[in-house]
């Protein structure tokens, strides 16, 4: 097989299965035992996996720089779309079970509760990224504009962590949100540092 064939026939399907594994696990464990509060289980699970996929998406570019494996970029869109997929499940759980799809009531919650505001903001920012994720949109927008738009993922990552932090800070010390905050800082900091280093290099 050629490299492209390997990618299409082996790597991509494997990655797809891996990305769907968390959801399969959730469904199977709820089937075995829904537990006392399945809505909470679904909400927490889809939320944390959204965050993990956002981190994964952000990690791909630094990993590419560090390892020199440029093929990694082929999986960035997939990771990003799975982040969006899990966020849709997360948001829908909230929208349906908390508000029975009542838009006004949902927006009222978004307005009143800072942690929901942050989460909603993170979610809404992902919509244009998902829509423009196709090759056709990259062509239509031009690489430069497209790249600029897709930097919105940085804002999504920051407000998603904030959303998590504000939600669970009742359980002190909030170890998990803090770790995600550190991870985002590292992933974004790496980009800043690299840009800075590049500028320095071009000036010399």
């Amino acid at each position: 097989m050629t490299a492209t064939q390997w990618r299409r026939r082996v790597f991509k399907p494997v990655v797809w299965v891996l990305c769907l594994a968390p959801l399969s696990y959730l469904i199977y464990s709820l089937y075995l035992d829904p537990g006392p509060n399945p809505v909470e289980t679904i909400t927490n699970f889809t939320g944390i996996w959204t965050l993990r996929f956002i981190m994964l998406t952000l990690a791909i570019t630094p990993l590419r720089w560090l390892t020199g494996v440029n093929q990694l970029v082929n999986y960035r869109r997939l990771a990003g779309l799975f982040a969006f997929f899990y966020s849709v499940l997360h948001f829908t759980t909230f929208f349906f079970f908390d508000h029975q799809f009542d838009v006004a009531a949902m927006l009222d919650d978004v307005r009143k509760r800072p942690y929901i505001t942050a989460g909603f903001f993170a979610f809404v920012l992902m919509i244009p990224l998902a829509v423009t994720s196709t090759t056709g949109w990259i062509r239509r927008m031009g690489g430069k504009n497209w790249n600029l738009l897709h930097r919105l993922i940085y804002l999504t990552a920051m407000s998603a962590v904030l959303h998590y932090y504000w939600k669970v800070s009742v359980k002190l010390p909030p170890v998990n949100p803090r770790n995600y905050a550190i991870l985002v800082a590292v992933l974004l900091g790496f980009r800043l540092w690299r840009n800075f280093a590049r500028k320095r290099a071009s000036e010399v």
Partner: protein
Amino acid sequence: MVIKKAPDVRESDVTPKELYLRRREFIAAAGVTAAAVATNGLGVLHEDGVLSAQNPSAQKLTNLKKSPLSTDEKINTYKDITTYNNFYEFGLDKADPSKYASTLKPRPWSVVVEGQCGKPGTYNIEDIMKWAPLEERIYRMRCVEGWSMVVPWVGYSMSEFLKRFEPTSRAKYVQFKTLVDQRQMPGQTEPALQWPYVEGLRMDEAMHPLALLGLGLYGEVLPNQNGAPIRLVVPWKYGFKGIKSIVRVSFVENEPLNTWKQQQSSEYGFYANVNPQVDHPRWSQGSERRLGEFFRRKTLMFNGYADQVASLYTGMDLRKFY
């Protein structure tokens, strides 16, 4: 008052009807999760075929009086009540207490009583359980986090308990403390909260007929994860007021500083009355999710006990004294 190991199945009285009607489903499900059931003691099938999802090794409490204070709402399952707990002494996750509370030794157990009262001393749990007839009281329980359940407690009025110690006129409040023992309560090795857990009530709140000294659940002694062997139940207040595994009772003149108020006084107060009009700073208290239900329901003033307890707070600004 009779406590005995009884093989008879009085608990069918308190097992939710739909639960035992669903027993075949449970048996089918039990096949799948047999290992979990066997190790956690989540369910036992009695010889008469009625499922009473209880702990086969727990001491049964019999001759329970029915209470007119009980709600007739649908009771939550034994499993819901015993596997979804906030008891940070055993970990922060809701499932942690049911997994790890086996290290707690609820017998022998004694409670120290001190402060502004005529009969301070150290009292044995076996004696405490005989001081008044045990009642089954089915109460709503609303957690400050926005979920709720209906629990068939066993115990007797807190007033019966406190009166024995002859509190003096200087006793304005009663303060309770939970056990501190890192071997029995491994969560206490973490500084999640300041240990021991402390709670308190104003004397008139503590003497209110609804305030319960909790000694059992579902016709049995309290499971460890629910605060064995002795706890407080105040159904019109958020669940965190219901201090568990009590070892010390103090009659005091000043308002005790309760653990959650100490932790975050902007979010948790001393009174902690269930109040749908006063939101938690980070979320609404207007609604709650009853365990076993998917959609949220409206939260009631004083958790539905307003007729009985509202007069305790006449003239108080409940936004200020949250």
